[in-house]
Every structure is written in C-alpha cells, then in structure tokens.
C-alpha cells in the first residue's frame, strides 16, 4: 500500500469516532486494536477542544462547561486548524457559536460539513458601522484637553494557548454565575445563564484580546507628540494605529461582563445593560480593554480608515464632539503607533 494511501486511511479514521481502527495498524496481537487507535483519536479531539477552551475562558465560564464543550466539540469537527501555529486557532469560534446558539446543536451533527461564514479579518476591528454622512457646522478643532475619556477595565494574565506552553497560572478558580436570564431559539435556556448575544460578544472580545496579545510589536505615539503639533497642521492630521489595537462594537455590555470575570473569585456581572464599544490596546506587553465613550468608536473607526481629523469630524456630524479629548484618549491608551502630520493650511 503506498504511504499516501496509508495516511489517508489513518486520517479518515481519526475523524470518524465510530469507525474501526485502520486495518494496517496493529497492536501486540497482530491485529487492529480499537483502544490503541483511540489514543490518537482522543489526542486530536482533546488537543483541539482544549485549545478552544483555553482561548475563551470567560465564555466557557458563562456558558457553563457542558454547553461550551458541546460547542467546542462541534467547532473542532467543522474547523480543523489550517496551520500548525495553534495560537491562531479558534478565531472563527465566536461566529460559529452565534450560529450554534441560534440554530441549536442538532444542526451540528457529528459529521456535519458545516462551515460558519468566515468573515474577512481586518487588523482593526469590525468596520460594520459608523457610516455617518457628515454635514452641518463644525466647531473649532482643539487639542490638549488632557484626561482619558475611557475607562480601563481590566487586564488578565496571559491566555491559555498552544501546547500548554503558553498556559498561565491565574484566573481559573471562578465561581459559577447564578442562574437566570433567558435564551431564545436553539439552546435551552436552562443550559445557560447569559443570553446568547452576550456570550457571543464576550467570545468576540476574548478572540480580539488574544489577537492583540500576539500582535506585532510597534512603538506608540505619545501625547507629547500630539500637543507639539502646530494648530495649522491639525485638520489634515491622520493616525496610524498600533498593530495590536482592536475596536469592537457590542449590542451587549460584553466588556463589563468580561472585566468582572477577570477578578478571581468575583461574580460575573449581570448581562443586563446597554451595548458597549470597546478598544483593546497592547502598547507594551499588557493587553487592556477600555470601554469607549459615546462617539469614540465612530471616531476611532473613521481615523482607522485613514481619515484626516477634519474628515472624521465632518463625518461624525456633531458640533459638540470633543475630538481633542478623544484623540488624546486614543494616544494615551497606546492605540496609536504614529501621528502623521497634516500639511499646514
């Protein structure tokens, strides 16, 4: 039997839990041995499910072990890693979980060929909103009103990633959340204490956090550079975001829920509340999550698209918008790699 045929049969049996062990593999008695082959099958499944669990510890906590494991098992069947670099594995899980929770586990049978819709990856957030059309009067642009407009929410230990080499210490001993809340559609509400939308948003936040954690290193712009800009240059000024910066818009208070779960032995915040816009930054080694003030997301999104300050201000169409405070906040958070001076008008 050509080696390629052997490997194909071996790989097929790995993905088929009820299949007999491949005929060409033997145990000590010179015959195929199911328990021996199951070691390989188990290693594959446990390794991949473990990688998903490690990437989404808070999602797992609020979903409960049983529901999360069922989702992770369905996910690893549908999404084999396409690269040996496991620190990138599991990034499609939030969208898969959204689909799973909406449609129910019966749609994700053992040998389902389901693939969740893969979203294009942008290094900067999810540019799906913020398409305001500018217009109206513009207030004077000003800079220098110090003070961060956003709240630093939390910082956690390094995530549990990879072949356990990147496994951190803290954060495991977390209490189970109280029961309550409901969830529509696919998954029985008794299985989960948080609405599916909140769980999915927390998973999106966790995924972005891991991306930020592993992003390329880069220097960050300082507020000093900002205040040294000549006022004439300001309207045409652009910014380049740091490779780790991630911008997220949630319909749920996902950032508050996530942050509350970073405190060891603390209870996870309830899921009631307004949606939140979040900014993740990692200017040095520590990835941090901030909740942005109103319009902060829209402003950062515009600037992330390459707009000049005047273009972003125009697009926001709010004369009261204090772009100076927002810009200082972005720079202080470490989200900005460089400030690209505009030409003096």
């Amino acid at each position, binding site marked *: *039997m*050509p*080696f*390629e045929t*052997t*490997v*194909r049969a071996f*790989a097929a049996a*790995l993905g088929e839990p009820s299949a007999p*062990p491949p005929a*060409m*593999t*033997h*145990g*000590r*008695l*010179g015959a*195929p*041995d*199911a*328990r*021996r*082959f199951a*070691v*390989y099958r188990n*290693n*594959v499944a446990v*390794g991949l499910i473990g*990688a998903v669990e490690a990437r989404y510890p808070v999602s797992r906590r609020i979903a409960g072990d049983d529901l999360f494991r069922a989702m992770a098992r369905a996910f690893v069947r549908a999404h*084999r*890693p*396409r*690269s*040996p*670099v*496991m*620190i*990138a594995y599991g990034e499609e899980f939030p969208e898969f979980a959204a689909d799973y929770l909406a449609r129910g586990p019966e749609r994700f049978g053992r040998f389902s060929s389901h693939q969740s819709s893969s979203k294009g990856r942008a290094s900067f957030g999810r540019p799906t909103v913020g398409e305001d059309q500018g217009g109206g009067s513009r207030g004077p642009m000003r800079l220098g009103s110090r003070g961060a407009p956003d709240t630093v929410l939390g910082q956690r230990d*390094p995530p549990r*990633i*990879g*072949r*356990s*080499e*990147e*496994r*951190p*210490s803290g954060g495991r001993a977390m209490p189970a959340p109280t029961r309550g809340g409901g969830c529509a559609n696919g998954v029985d509400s008794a299985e989960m204490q948080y609405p599916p939308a909140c769980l999915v948003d927390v998973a999106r936040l966790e995924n972005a956090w891991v991306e*930020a*954690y*592993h*992003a*390329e*290193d880069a220097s960050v712009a300082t507020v000093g550079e900002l205040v040294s800009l000549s006022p004439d240059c300001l309207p045409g000024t652009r910014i380049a975001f740091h*490779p*780790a910066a991630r911008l997220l818009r949630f319909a749920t208070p996902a950032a508050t829920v996530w942050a509350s779960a970073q405190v060891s032995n603390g209870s996870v915040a309830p899921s009631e509340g307004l949606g939140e816009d979040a900014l993740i930054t*990692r200017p040095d*080694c*520590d*990835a941090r999550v901030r909740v942005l003030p109103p319009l902060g997301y829209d402003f950062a999104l515009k600037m992330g698209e390459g707009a000049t300050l005047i273009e972003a201000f125009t697009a926001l169409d709010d004369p009261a918008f204090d772009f100076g405070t927002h810009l200082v906040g972005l720079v202080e958070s470490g989200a900005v790699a460089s400030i690209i001076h505009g030409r003096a008008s």
Partner: protein
Amino acid sequence: MTVADHRSPEALGAPSVGVGFKPEHFDAIADTRPELGFFEVHAENYMGGGGAPHRRLDAIRELYPLSLHGVGLSIGSPGPLDRAHLQRLAAVAKRFEPTLVSEHLAWSTHEGAFLNDLLPLPYTDETVALVSEHIDEVQNALGRTMLLENPSTYVVFAASTWAETDFLREIARRTGCGLLLDVNNVFVSAVNHGFDPELYLADFPLSAVGEVHLAGCADDRDDAGLPLLIDAHNSPVRDPVWSLYSTTIRRLGPTPTLIEWDNDVPAWPTLLGEARRAERAIAESVTSREHADAV
C-alpha cells in the same frame, strides 16, 4: 555533508541538563536564575507577531542557551513539506539563535488540516527516502543540522520492513542530521509493543545523538487488556526510565538532556528537582566511566 559531533558537551555548556520553559515559571526563573544548561521551547508557540511571549523568551535567551523543538512541521507526511511553516521555523531560529533545533519522526498535517498530534508512519524504503528528503529540505532552509526525535507509538504498521533503530540510523546517514533520543518514548513503545528497551537502546545509533529527552507517561490498557502507556508529559519521569537513562548516558557520555513536562505543569521547584536528578545521573555516569577507565 560532514557529520558534526552532535554530542559536544560544550555545545550547551555545563551542566547540560535543561527543562521545557513554561511562562508560569518565568518569574521564578528570572528571580532565582538557577544554574541550568538550557531551556527548550516549542517553536510554534513563538510564531505569533510579538508581545509577551517574545519578550519572555528574549529574557530567557539572555540568561541561558536555548533549544528549539518543533511540533508542527509534519516531516513524516507523504506530500511536500509546508514551505510557509518551514519559513516560520527558520524565522524563529534566526530570531532566537537556538543552540539546538529538533523535530519529530511523525506526521501531523493531512490535506492542509493540522491534526495537533504526532502520528506514526510505517518504516519502509518509501518512507525512509521521503523523510530523508524532507530533512534535507529542513536543514537547507535552516542552514544547519537538525535533530530528529524517535517517536512513542501505540500501533505498529504491518507494512513496516525496517526496525525503528535502523530507520533512524539510515536517515541520519543519508542526511547528516542528528538524533534526539527520547528515553521515555523508548520505554512507552517498549511496553506498548512488548520489546526489550535495553535491546532497542543497544541497537540505537548513539553516535548521532545530540540530545536526550526524559518525561512522564500515563497508564492505560488496550483491547486485549495489555498495558498501554500514554506519552502524556504530565508527571515525573518514571523509575524504569531513569534506569534506562543511567545506562544510556554512561554509554553516550555527557549529552544535553531535557526534562519535558508539558501538561499539569508542576511548581518550579518540582521541575528543577527532576533536572537535578538528571544532573546527578550524568555525574555518576562520568565517575563510573572514569572508574572503568582506571581499572
């Protein structure tokens, strides 16, 4: 290709015992700076863009020699190597300048899907040629020789026509690569397949060995109720493995030796204790060699 002396003890300085680096041990290592021969890391964990993992490994690398252990190259795959992954491995090797680079006699990728396990291959004329070609390619890309690790296995292939030791010897001969002798893997496979590990080691091409691995394993049973050991890397090195190590290191001479503990990672002093035990075994082997020479 000239055959390097993979055993040169000064390659990693003395004492030449190392441990697998885990981030949770970083503070203890940085605070106490224990005397250790080297640290080893899985190459794939440092293939991200940057951030804390790179920063920690930079700090470790400033204090200790480094051994880079790949777990994802799938050298035993039938198809061509994943060139992009080989380039990533070369980039990590360039950045962190390890003293040793090693990979496994196994396959882990099939039709573009990474299976996250080290899977076995039959030992045939076809696979000895295939693996040798892949190792040539790896060594060309890295610009250095690599070490190939003997596997632990749970099944054998009816199609195999080579003994594992002969297979490894032939690959080392064809490619000039060194070998990473995992003594726990020998013990696990010996129990699983019912052979004598001493005879396996007596037949192992020791002159090509550039590094030794020691690790813990777990107990299971096969369909026939026979003992089946799992290469779990989750516990202390077992006494029979220490015993095999003592015999082997006496024949090998001092050789860089790694304590591998990847799952249920213990507190730092426990891991360091395992390393100290390996150092004592090396010291005793040197004494007994000197004694033998003097007699």
